């Protein structure tokens, strides 16, 4: 770290400024620091291996082998929040990675190559890599290539696509396939850790991850309240403990305490007005723009707040409690196939409609993320469907989650200004109709 601070002083200074601009509580800042500190020293423990999973990969399997999760995407998000991704991305591009490729991947590869610490996107060398293909090709290609580059073994989990029109029968078939692959995964992990898999231990970990997800989900549910207790710019950082699961006990304690505070403030979850409703309650679909927290502050000044995101919900999918080992494996498989972030178009539209009603939504922003083509697919259809069934404004916003070169402040604000005007016109119309 010291070496980094001296060698890359400009990056470090602007990064510190970027972190300071985040809506962090001391506790959440402490947790973020805990994760990167532990990531850096994980290798010091010779009994503990480290493993690099991608988002959505069932980390509990790694934890069952005491593998510390080195999470490349999480570090890329740190770099994004710090606002220091540009030179890391350009470094990756100088290594032959195209301008059009995912900026998480390039931030990660570039920062690692430059020797940056994980707080700034670099990835300490893990003992093994794992990823799954349900979200994107990039997860698979990125981890497999990095594993090769860094001479570590790789395991790829193949998650079939549950496309529109598929039913329970297909789902059951696909679950069988995933459960069979979990067994291959266990064999892989046993081989590379030299440890035996313990069902009991796995089930204890699952029970904790289910508890963490349940608590996190209840907090998310509170965002239906008027006003919501948390907004996207905070939620995107708040999800870190459950997304990475480096310390499940600490994660549970943190969410339990947060939930208690929210319960005290809001009473039972109720969509009914419990205070002053936000002027415009919004849904954001897609990954956040990490380096532009100011955009969310700017919108907040205009009364526009994001109260639901499939993105932050997708990191806490282990919500249904299970008791037996087999039931648990099948449930994990089901959750992978029906991740809120990758729902097929029919289910995605239905989910939007449900959330619009539950969260009393005034407008939807679909992030046409230049880095994330899979997640931006079918947005035109989503927009048309929501506008038709719910008659609320929908904005397709073109930007990039980690690459500031693809963000144009002026046009973005202009688009949001007209979007707010549309919501305002709708609000005025509704009020006029009432009176």
């Amino acid at each position, binding site marked *: 770290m010291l070496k980094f601070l001296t060698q890359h002083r400009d990056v470090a200074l602007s990064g510190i400024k970027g972190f300071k601009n985040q809506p962090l509580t001391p506790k959440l800042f402490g947790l973020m620091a805990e994760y990167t500190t532990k990531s850096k020293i994980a290798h010091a423990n010779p009994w503990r291996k480290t493993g690099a999973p991608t988002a959505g990969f069932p980390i509990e399997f790694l934890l069952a082998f005491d593998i510390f999760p080195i999470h490349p995407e999480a570090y890329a998000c740190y770099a994004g929040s710090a606002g220091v991704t540009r030179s890391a991305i350009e470094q990756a591009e100088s290594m*032959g990675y195209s301008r059009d490729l995912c900026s998480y991947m390039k931030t990660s590869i570039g920062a690692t190559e430059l020797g940056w610490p994980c707080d700034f996107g670099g990835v300490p060398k893990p003992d093994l890599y794992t990823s799954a293909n349900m979200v994107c090709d990039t997860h698979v290609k990125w981890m497999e290539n990095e594993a090769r580059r860094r001479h570590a073994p790789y395991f790829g989990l193949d998650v079939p696509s549950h496309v529109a029109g598929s039913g329970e029968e297909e789902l059951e078939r696909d679950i069988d396939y995933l459960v069979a692959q979990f067994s291959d995964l266990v064999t892989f992990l046993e081989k590379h850790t030299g440890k035996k898999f313990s069902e009991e231990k796995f089930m204890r970990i699952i029970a904790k991850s289910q508890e963490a997800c349940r608590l996190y989900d209840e907090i998310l549910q509170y965002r239906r309240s008027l006003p919501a207790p948390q907004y996207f710019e905070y939620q995107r950082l708040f999800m870190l403990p459950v997304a990475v699961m480096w310390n499940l006990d600490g994660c549970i304690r943190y969410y339990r305490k947060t939930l208690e505070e929210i319960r005290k403030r809001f009473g039972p979850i109720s969509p009914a007005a419990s205070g002053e409703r936000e002027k415009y309650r919004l849904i954001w679909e897609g990954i956040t723009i990490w380096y532009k927290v100011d955009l969310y502050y700017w919108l907040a000044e205009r009364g526009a707040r994001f109260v639901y995101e499939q993105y932050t919900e997708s990191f806490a999918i282990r919500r249904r409690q299970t008791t037996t080992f087999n039931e648990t494996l099948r449930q994990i498989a089901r959750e992978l196939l029906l991740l809120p972030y990758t729902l097929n178009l029919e289910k995605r539209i239905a989910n939007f409609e449900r959330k619009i009603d539950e969260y009393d939504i005034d407008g939807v922003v679909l992030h046409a993320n230049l880095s994330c083509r899979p997640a931006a697919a079918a947005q035109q259809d989503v927009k048309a469907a929501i506008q038709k069934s719910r008659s609320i404004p929908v904005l397709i916003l073109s930007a990039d989650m980690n690459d500031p070169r693809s963000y144009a402040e002026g046009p973005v604000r202009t688009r949001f200004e007209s979007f707010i005007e549309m919501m305002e016109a709708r609000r005025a119309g509704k009020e006029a109709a009432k009176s």
Partner: protein
Amino acid sequence: MQTFAYFDSGHEFPEEIVMAAGFTPYKILGDVEAGTGAADEYLHTYFCPFARGALNQALAADDDWAGIGFAHGCDATNRHYDVWRRHLGQPFFWVNTPMKTNPTARVFHRRGLDDFRADLEKAYGVAITPEKLAAAIRQSNRIKEKMRRLAALRATRDITNPEYFEMVRTAVQEPRDRVLEYLGELEREWPARPAFPRALVPVLLTGSDVTFPGWMEVMEEAGLRVVRDDLSLGERYFHAAIPETVEPLKALVEYYALQPQPATRVPSDRRLDYLKTALWESGLNAVVSQNLKFCEPYAIDAPWIVNELKKQGIRIIHLEREYTPTLDHQALTRLETFRQLLE
């Protein structure tokens, strides 16, 4: 015979099941001349232009096809299926081909093929018997065998890049009997061609599938002759024969593991192995690697493939290419420079 169209980012779609159901399989390749305009209403313009071109063609050709099938491949097939299904009227079928070829994946693959067979039977009221499947496999193998023999002539005879492209395009789009007839004509004609032109440099072509002849023309114009490749519209389609001595659906599963591997499959080392073997077998030392703009699987693999082949002493160039019917002058200049380096 009615046409059954399919969209496939590799060579994963089981054509033989469609043939056994009494249809002519037709691989959707889009029409670069027609562009992507209609599809751009539904898909962002920063998505794979070939995939947009394919949807564009489907939107125009809607009524000509009895059904449309997709095989699980790259993000384009996996995420665009729902969009196609929403805007097109035909029956739609999804074949969940696996990312791997290990024993676990094979069991799943087999189940997926069985389901696809049953879905076709139900949708069209046909019986897809083992005998019909075996006959379709035999017919496919005859086609592949002829293509293998013809493709091998590229190294010794004057067979242009667009001609080779046209051979493969015909094989994936025309009625099977017509394909056999056409390949028979080529078998009579190609061996009598003049020897490989001395002015041209033989190369191996790898990367995203080349789906229109324009790019092959650019290479020809640059003086580079493709004598080996690992494309789906190329050797991936005919390199291996489908086993004929095992039960037909099992044979299709086995065949899948024998093909040169696309970048969407794991472990991708098998893709590199095929390239190295092809180079070694043909005594080639020059490779043109390319990816279509926005094609992630091949773009991500590019730095690795380029470095690995360079380590073997292979001369290699990597380009990102556009989806355009007009001559890509920038690519031409780079390829010409590459060719000069090879001379």
